[in-house]
């Protein structure tokens, strides 16, 4: 369903990788590995259509993602190095507006529940800028609880999370895969995620 053909990525003068191809089916997990600076973030951003590939293409259900942006985006959730959370708004407001922007109506009840589950109970109505590093990250993660997207693209989602939160997120990804979702993620930490089929791509081993 998500297919990458002969992808090449160039940043500045460096060619990070080239000739990268893989194909991800429903219920599959792609674990992206690589040392610092090997191009993981660049690849994930390319998969989302934020970066234009220097060569090659990214296909979603057989069609180039850049030709069907709105349809593709409707099925995608991306979590980057940055949280994409507004510090002036409370956690609750952030989530409510995120949902509305995606065009889906979600009841306040559901949002409060999501925040409760992700461990932000009692902090829903503080401006997120006063939250701790890990709490901010959790607000961003709460989006996953509310998302109905098929494809999750997660760039080091475990950063700043404490042990409990790491386990919870791993469980979340597992549940998503079991429901037939797909996920692409990268992390430098050791995390166990049980999934039917796990593919691994190590960018340190892909030709530059």
């Amino acid at each position, binding site marked *: 369903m998500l297919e990458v053909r002969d992808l090449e990525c160039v*940043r*500045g*003068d460096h*060619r990070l990788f080239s000739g990268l191809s893989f194909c991800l089916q429903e219920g599959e997990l792609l674990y992206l590995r690589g040392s610092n600076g090997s191009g993981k973030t660049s690849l994930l951003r390319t998969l989302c259509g934020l970066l234009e590939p220097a060569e090659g293409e990214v296909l979603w259900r057989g069609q180039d993602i850049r030709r069907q942006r709105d349809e593709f985006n409707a099925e995608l959730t991306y979590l980057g190095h940055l949280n994409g959370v507004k510090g002036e708004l409370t956690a609750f407001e952030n989530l409510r507006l995120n949902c509305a922007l995606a065009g889906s109506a979600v009841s306040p009840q559901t949002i409060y529940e999501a925040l409760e589950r992700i461990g932000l109970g009692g902090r829903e109505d503080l401006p997120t800028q006063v939250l701790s590093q890990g709490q901010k990250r959790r607000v961003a993660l709460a989006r996953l609880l509310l998302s109905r997207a098929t494809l999750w693209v997660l760039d080091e989602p475990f950063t700043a999370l404490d042990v409990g939160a790491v386990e919870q997120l791993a469980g979340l990804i597992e549940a998503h895969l079991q429901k037939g979702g797909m996920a692409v993620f990268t992390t430098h930490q050791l995390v166990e995620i049980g999934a039917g089929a796990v593919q691994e791509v190590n960018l340190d081993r892909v030709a530059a």
Partner: protein
Amino acid sequence: MGFKNSIAWYYFSSPKNFYALAGKLIPWFWVLAIGLIGVGLYMSFFVAPTDYKQGESYRIIFIHVPAAWMSMFIYLVMAAYAIIGLAWKVRMADMMASALAPTGAMFTFLALWTGAFWGKPTWGTYWVWDARLTSELILLFLYIGFISLQSAIDDPRRAAKASGLLAIVGVINLPIIYFSVKWWNTLHQGASVSPTMAPKMASIMLTTMLIMAIGFWMYTIAVVLMRARRIVLERERQTGWVRELLLGEGK
């Protein structure tokens, strides 16, 4: 897309082929440019008759008007290249657009400068905030904006895209300059050369201006090709053929 597939275009849109071809063409354009501008200047100063109203100072028209034409044409061409570059991702088109900008800015400046120089004897002042003059000044700002935006962004591909978009947005200024004299009563003279009406000017003047304009074009092409070659080398420096070329020249 059919357009990109046409063989000739495809061939020369490759930086390597362009580099070779441009190298061969540049001397010819220089010859043409120098010849035409030489003839044009001779005609402006020795052949064209003295104007009964303005005396000798009017001769500046032979530089002013072609320069003003060029300032607008070049912008148009630049924007066209920008569109090709953005829509069909032809790298060579982006490079041509960036190569054109400095020359365009130079002609805009020339038009402004000669105009101001001419304004003193005719209007009694170097500068008035008239619609045409102002819009020509805006054109200069647009060129400068294009150049600065490009140099402010490190990644060359992103820089080309961003400045290309700016060039396209700025096209809106061209009709404003061209029609400013028609739309608003201004101090500046209206168009006297247009395809529909017979030339009001003496035909010798028209011929001279046209020769100068074509000479300017040849000059532009020569300079732009040279600049484009330099840009090609810089942006393609990690490709094999440029490395070979530079090593070859280094020997």
